[in-house]
């Protein structure tokens, strides 16, 4: 009989984030009242974060397989074959709520969590990226959140020793009370030495590894799925502290241990720590698990079973070990100064049994804990279609040059150097293209193979039209990989939305997934891992729908990579793809005219693919000297970025068939700006014509000014001052901790 000394009241149930019908489901499942520890376990397993109860139905519609996919969603990270017996393992995960409460530690532990996901599978991390979204710059808390989050991302990754090579930073008032911190990590492993979480074998030791357990983040997982409100203050002590030093030791110890062949199954302790990891390992292997919590290394005295099962202390792992190699395994961990304790064993009775001080504190059916989690088909309303915006309804600026300078210095468009210089993007010595380009490129071993990485989404498009926005995010990701010469392989996603219990929000979610799915299928770009973060709301107001897409691409020969920078004077500048001057939802419309209107630019996936395949084949043939995709801000902004990056100006012809501002700032998709030697233009145009790809020459590089038609030249110096200046100037303001 199981001790049941705490009366489970409806209030207690509600405090655990469980709805009355969900509690009833628990009662039906176990046929008695749960103990407090059991209630805690259910609340951890059945909250949104772990169970995906609102999103599962829709996630199933995503394409997750492909010739290169070794392991899709369902493990700690996705695994993709990159040839030569090697695999790339990657995933993205959010740490939004914790990062708003304590920006430094929230972001740091977010990075720690995703790195662990990757090396748990046997991979040595080779790249980290991060997609960050903050409130309006003028909001009193924004600066503090930015400085803390960036320092936290850097603080963890730099110390751990992974190059942080890219990501995104955006500002919007919808994130005022709810920043987004989406951390991506990728690691390299031998394709035949991947480690999974499925336990195998009865009576085998379950080993606890890493740091000690404290009362950190108890209720963290529940918090991550709860809306913010005025009580947020009280939830503060659940903040977890990251210890990148221990994580680095854990990495080295795990990889060393895996090489000995002692590891049968391994799972990191992330959200809901011991509970989630132990249940997953057992349930996947059709095995029961029995744990004796007295054996768990603890940092604090008098921890209860409840606390130990829900603690989110960082830098911990659970393994099922080959008993014959237990001594050897322990020696490895002792060498690295980490805790190592056998805390239980696998059983054949499919129960999840927890003991503390010799007493059974929980005894639950292990499969049902996961399988029988509630799943919802939440009501949803499709986002109403916005009215298209005619170009004639969008006034031209007085001065194109001034407008361009303004745009390149906008919070969303300015250089992110201030951010990425705080990240060690060079460690490991393989960074071929660092932050600041379309995609970052990392050499694999001694080459010539390399991988490209990028994170993308345009939340304003997703808000205006979730389906097109979802498509666009995937398409832009694909395009960014293509722009450096990579073959796009697969993606991970991080779906950040508001409260799914609201049909309009659920409609955004459903729409975005539909768009992501369509694009992923059309571009053969399967989803191999991901994460969902819901309830990103403050006082009833949701964030912009933000499905961040992380993409990985392969370059067979690193020597053939290209960057965005203009290389020298005298190169011809061409645009690939058609420019129609779509200004709906553009940066120009939003930030210069202060209007959030119209439809986002439509994405034609067939055209996307055709244009991209053409550009990639030209890059691989060595024909191009610079490539940049035209996205946020439009063509002229892309040209300015290429000029600034190379310190080389350009003379651009004005368009004949479009109003100048529509041509300059329209955000039509599937476009690339390329440069090549003058003499090569004719043959390239011929090849483009044969491939049915629109291509036209628009100018020539040279000088230190950007000149558009007969307009006054804009000096690169002036552009750079605006572009480079915004971030440092903004961040020089006072960083006040509790200005809420």
């Amino acid at each position, binding site marked *: 009989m199981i001790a049941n000394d705490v009366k489970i009241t409806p209030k207690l149930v509600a405090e655990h984030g469980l709805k009355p019908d969900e509690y009833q489901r628990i009662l039906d499942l176990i046929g008695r009242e749960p103990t407090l520890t059991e209630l805690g376990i259910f609340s951890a397993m059945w909250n949104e974060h772990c169970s995906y109860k609102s999103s599962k139905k829709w996630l199933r519609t995503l394409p997750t397989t492909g010739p290169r996919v070794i392991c899709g969603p369902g493990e700690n990270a996705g695994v993709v074959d990159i040839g030569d017996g090697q695999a790339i393992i990657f995933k993205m995960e959010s740490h939004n709520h914790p990062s708003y409460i304590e920006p430094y530690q929230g972001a740091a532990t977010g990075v720690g969590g995703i790195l662990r996901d990757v090396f748990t599978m046997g991979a040595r991390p080779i790249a980290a990226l991060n997609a960050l979204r903050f409130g309006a710059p003028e909001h009193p808390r924004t600066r503090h959140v930015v400085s803390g989050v960036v*320092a936290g991302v*850097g*603080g963890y990754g*730099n*110390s*751990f*020793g992974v190059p942080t090579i890219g990501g995104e930073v955006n500002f919007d008032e919808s994130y005022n009370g709810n920043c987004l911190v989406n951390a991506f990590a990728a690691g390299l492993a031998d394709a035949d030495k991947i480690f999974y979480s499925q336990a195998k074998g009865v009576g085998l030791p379950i080993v606890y590894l890493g740091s000690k357990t404290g009362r950190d983040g108890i209720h963290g997982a529940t918090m991550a799925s709860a809306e913010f409100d005025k009580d947020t203050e009280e939830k503060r002590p659940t903040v977890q502290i990251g*210890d*990148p*030093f*221990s994580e*680095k*030791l854990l990495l080295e110890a795990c990889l060393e241990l895996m090489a000995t062949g002692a590891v049968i199954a391994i799972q990191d302790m992330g959200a809901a720590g011991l509970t989630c990891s132990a249940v997953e390992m057992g349930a996947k292997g059709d095995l029961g698990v029995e744990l004796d919590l007295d054996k768990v290394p603890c940092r604090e005295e008098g921890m209860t079973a409840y606390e130990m099962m829900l603690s989110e202390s960082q830098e911990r792992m659970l393994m099922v070990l080959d008993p014959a190699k237990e001594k050897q395994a322990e020696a490895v961990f002792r060498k*690295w*100064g980490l805790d190592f304790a056998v805390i239980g064993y696998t059983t054949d009775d499919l129960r999840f049994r927890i003991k503390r001080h010799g007493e059974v504190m929980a005894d639950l059916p292990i499969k049902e804990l996961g399988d029988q989690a509630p799943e919802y088909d939440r009501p949803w309303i499709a986002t109403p279609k916005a009215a298209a915006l005619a170009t004639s309804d969008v006034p031209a600026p007085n001065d194109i040059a001034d407008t361009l300078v303004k745009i390149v210095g906008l919070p969303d468009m300015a250089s992110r150097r201030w951010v*990425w*210089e*705080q*990240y*060690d*993007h*060079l*460690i*490991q*010595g*393989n*960074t*071929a293209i660092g932050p600041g380009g379309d995609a970052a490129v990392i*050499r694999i071993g001694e*080459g010539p193979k390399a991988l490209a990485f990028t994170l993308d989404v345009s939340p304003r498009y997703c808000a205006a039209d979730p389906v097109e926005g979802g498509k666009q995010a995937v398409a832009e990701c694909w395009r960014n990989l293509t722009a450096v010469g990579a073959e796009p392989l697969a993606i991970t996603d991080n779906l950040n939305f508001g409260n799914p219990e609201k049909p309009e929000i659920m409609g955004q979610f459903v729409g975005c997934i539909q768009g992501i799915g369509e694009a992923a299928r059309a571009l053969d770009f399967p989803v191999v891992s991901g994460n969902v973060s819901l309830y990103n709301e403050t006082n009833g107001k949701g964030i912009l729908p933000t499905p961040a897409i992380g993409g990985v691409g392969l370059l067979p020969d*690193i020597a053939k990579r290209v960057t965005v920078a203009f290389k020298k004077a005298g190169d011809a500048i061409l645009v690939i793809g058609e420019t129609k001057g779509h200004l709906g939802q553009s940066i120009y419309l939003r930030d210069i005219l202060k209007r959030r209107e119209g439809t986002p630019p439509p994405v034609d996936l067939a055209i996307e693919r055709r244009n991209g395949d053409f550009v990639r084949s030209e890059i691989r043939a060595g024909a191009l000297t610079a490539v940049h995709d035209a996205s946020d801000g439009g063509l002229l902004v892309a040209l300015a970025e290429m000029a600034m990056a190379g310190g080389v100006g350009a003379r651009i012809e004005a368009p004949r068939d479009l109003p100048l501002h529509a041509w300059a700032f329209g955000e039509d998709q599937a476009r690339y700006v390329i440069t090549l030697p003058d003499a090569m233009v004719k043959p390239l145009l011929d090849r483009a014509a044969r491939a049915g790809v629109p291509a036209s020459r628009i100018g020539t590089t040279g000088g230190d000014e950007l000149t558009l038609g007969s307009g006054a030249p804009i000096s690169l110096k002036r552009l750079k001052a605006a572009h480079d200046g915004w971030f440092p100037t903004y961040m020089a303001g006072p960083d006040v901790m509790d200005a809420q």
Partner: protein
Amino acid sequence: MKSAVIVFPGSNRERDMLSALEKITGTKPVAVWHADKELPKVDLVVLPGGFSYGDYLRTGAIAARAAIMDDVRKKAADGVHVLGVCNGFQILCEAGLLPGVLMRNSHLKFVCRHVKLEVANAKTAFTRKYKQGEVWRCPVAHGDGNYFADAETLARLEGENRVVFRYAEGTNPNGSLNDIAGIMNERGNVMGLMPHPENEIEDLNGGIEGRALFESVLEAVA
């Protein structure tokens, strides 16, 4: 040339260093564990970059008291070349093998970027393949690279030509005194520097001027 790279808990550029040494010297260096008591017989001992012990307490402080450091001291006294890069430099200062200390960057942020280094003394075992006054590009990646020493020590360092590298052309990334990027001991066989020459050795890095540092030692010990 035989070389050894010491691995402390939390070292994280040891792989970069091992690989650079192998590429440049043609000989595989030995990785030595911090808890070992003795170094193998080598011509060059390298303390690599990283965050030994998480940079907790003070950068390099805990590593400077590691078991292996006694033998590093002994080898240094015997004239073996010792190179500390970034965290390695911090450790050498904490261990008293080099004077002064590396404090938080003046802007209090970690900084990773390429700087310009001026060769302030080309007559050392670590710089003989550079020209005096030569300026080369090299990356830095640190949060505590702000070199500080009292006025007397500083005057001695300058007077004895023991400042080996300086940040040039206004690229001082951390506020260090006299733009100091690297210094050596009196005898000239122990040098520490904050920048990472091991990450500037092949075309992929965008420059290869870090090679000359290792090639200098190679020549010096030949």
